[in-house]
């Protein structure tokens, strides 16, 4: 009896095991066979050898429904190369690319943020685009910028999102302010006046959540860059002995000390920040131009405008405006690097790039593109003019472990705000120390 049950059990176990592996082999085969059939279908249609590129991005969700698919389908019509759109939640895209690169499951073409480029390039996850472009005799002058590491391009910004300052005109009016502030002193005074008249509101807002410390880049450094300052010198950290940097830190701290900054800053994300503005609780906010549409949609009655970030006293030069970009790169292990480069060149071609820029409410990454913003909000074109009068800048792009640098800056800044660090010089010296470790 025992033997029989033993035999039965071991047989059952074997059966289960073989079922498992059988089905998994089937499924694995099924997976690739469905892709093969996709290729076969297009093969049947075109009669030639069809390649399918996987494009890993988060853009589809942000663009009007179906628009990215249409752009990719046009590419397929022109070149017989199929584009398979894959998407991940934005917050996890970086982690997924890193994991995919390590395990060999990375897509052919990847959407990249400027702050990830250096590390992925050094790890050998993304391909050298300079060589690919040379192979195609591509004229790199038509690119507004390329993100390079060690002199080779690894990422091309497709569209740029500028970070102007949004102004809540109703709050300003309630405090009797009729003119937009142009200098830091005027800005601070306006904030104080607004706060006095509207205790539930705040003058300015910044998001310092450790989750995604881009507030340092977008909100804090904007002050520095708008006044022609730099945090790097020759690509290396230069935070100490940097008068403008010290003044910026002290200025932002003075805003906190005056009580005009929205509470909850240290756990606030960019989305929280925008919603606070939408609800009319914030007078000034440095935020992505991409949110223009969101603000208009969610609160059509809000009376607001955009302006350039006020400049430091005594600075009369051109203003740098913070830009974040949707960048694109090619996986180092891609089986079709030439086709991938072709797709990138297509997205960077003036017409397509202009189209994308309009759809995304962004500025084009192609130097030759002329987007038709006529149907866009007038604030958008207003901001575009401000942007063109100055220059786009983001020193966090293309440097090692950007996110971590922002985080350590944020931590030291918060210690300074708390009073545990006594002076801006001390704080900046600490940050400089930590940053230098990353640049080794």
């Amino acid at each position: 009896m025992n033997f029989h049950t033993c035999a039965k059990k071991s047989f059952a176990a074997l059966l289960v095991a073989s079922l498992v592996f059988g089905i998994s082999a089937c499924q694995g085969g099924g997976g690739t066979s469905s892709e093969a059939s996709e290729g076969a279908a297009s093969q049947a249609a075109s009669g030639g050898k069809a390649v399918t590129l996987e494009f890993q991005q988060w853009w589809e969700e942000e663009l009007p429904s179906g628009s990215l698919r249409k752009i990719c389908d046009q590419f397929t019509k022109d070149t017989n190369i199929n584009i398979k759109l894959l998407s991940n939640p934005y917050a996890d895209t970086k982690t997924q690319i890193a994991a995919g690169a390590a395990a060999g499951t990375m897509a052919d073409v990847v959407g990249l943020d400027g702050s990830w480029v250096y590390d992925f390039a050094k790890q050998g996850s993304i391909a050298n685009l300079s060589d690919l472009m040379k192979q195609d005799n591509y004229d790199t002058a038509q690119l507004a910028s390329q993100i390079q590491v060690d002199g080779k391009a690894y990422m091309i910004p497709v569209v740029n999102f500028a970070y102007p300052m949004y102004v809540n005109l109703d709050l300003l009016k309630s405090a009797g302010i009729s003119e937009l502030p142009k200098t830091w002193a005027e800005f601070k005074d306006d904030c104080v006046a607004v706060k006095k008249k509207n205790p539930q509101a705040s003058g300015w807002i910044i998001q310092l959540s450790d989750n995604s410390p881009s507030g340092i880049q977008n909100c804090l450094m904007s002050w520095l860059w708008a006044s022609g300052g730099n945090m790097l010198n020759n690509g290396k950290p230069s935070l100490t002995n940097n008068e403008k940097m010290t003044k910026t830190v002290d200025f932002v701290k003075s805003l906190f000390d005056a009580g005009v900054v929205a509470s909850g800053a240290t756990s606030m994300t960019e989305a929280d920040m925008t919603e606070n503005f939408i609800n009319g609780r914030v007078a000034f906010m440095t935020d992505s131009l991409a949110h223009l549409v969101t603000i208009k949609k969610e609160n059509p009655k809000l009376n607001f405008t955009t302006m350039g970030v006020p400049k430091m006293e005594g600075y009369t030069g051109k203003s740098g405006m913070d830009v974040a970009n949707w960048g694109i790169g090619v996986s180092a292990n891609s089986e079709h690097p030439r086709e991938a480069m072709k797709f990138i060149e297509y997205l960077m071609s003036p017409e397509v790039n202009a189209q994308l820029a309009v759809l995304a409410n962004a500025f084009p990454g192609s130097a030759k593109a002329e987007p038709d913003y006529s149907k866009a909000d007038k604030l958008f074109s207003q901001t575009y003019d401000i942007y063109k009068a100055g220059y786009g800048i983001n020193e966090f792009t293309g440097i090692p472990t950007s996110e971590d640098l922002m985080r350590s800056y944020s931590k030291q800044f918060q210690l300074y705000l708390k009073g545990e660090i006594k002076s801006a010089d001390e704080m900046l010296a600490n940050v400089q120390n930590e940053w230098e470790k990353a640049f080794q």
Partner: protein
Amino acid sequence: MGKSISIKPSQTVKAKTKGRCENALPRSKKVRAIQVPEENASSIRHENNRWQRLKKKCEPYFYILPTSLLMVLLLILPIVMVICYSFFNNVIIEKSPSFVGFSNYLSILTDSEFANAIWNTLHFVCISVVAHLILGMLFAMLLNSSYLKRSTKTVFRVIYVLPWVFTASVIAILWKLMFDPNGVINYLIQAVAGPGIGHIEWLSSTSLALHAVTFINIWAGYPFYMISILAGLQGISYDLYEASALDGANMPQTFFRITVPQLKPILISLVMLDFVWTIQQFALIWMTTAGGPINATNTLSTYIYKQAFSKYQYSMASASSVIVLIVCTLIAIFYVRHQKASE
């Protein structure tokens, strides 16, 4: 064949003895020697005995075979890889990492941020586990009470199990909205205590953040205890309660002298599992404070995440993970020894 004759009696004998230990090798031999005196087929019987002894010995292993296979293939293998990573430098980000022995461990153990993470984790885990236990027990007892109608219990059982039904991300986002300085919790507090109390920064202040996050975790995790304890309560024999009521025991006495001892094995398992799991809690903390204002809520899981995917120091992350693994293994060994002793 002498086989059938020799099996049945030994089975009966085994059944008669209140056998706890099935390692019955010496016993069955003894029994067979007494019960079945046969001379002729002794050699065949020897073969049969040995074969049956082997089968008996292997029997328990057959039951655990599928599970063990699965775990070894899919879990032990990656864990071994992680342990290997911890002894190399710049794993994954460089094509040929170099062997550095224990230096990663040394760097981690001397990192003040790691020490801070351990302290926060201990605080987070211990308070969570204790609160889970108390709440779970309280709710389970409430839902098991004979003072309530069956329909009432059904309705409240569903309400109490609600926190379990949602993903960690959603719970984090929801509580982040509620704990917002302009959120509903501050609104309720102001409604009670007046507007003078201002907008409390639950998740953004270094003093409150860890407590807020712990509170969220308590809310999210107690149903696990409640359900397991409820199931355990069903298994406590009614006779025990009857007997104690006859002896005139009141409620606290009944609770501490009957309910708790009967539930003890389950409770110990729950506490130990929850301890190990709460150390891993990541999504909840990441999406509310991500390690918090100035590392106030930086626990081991967020520390390791930042090492791996922000600093790209996979070897460091692996070393930290191995340290966590060692600590939990010690706890597991302790638990298993305790189980063995109580058997």
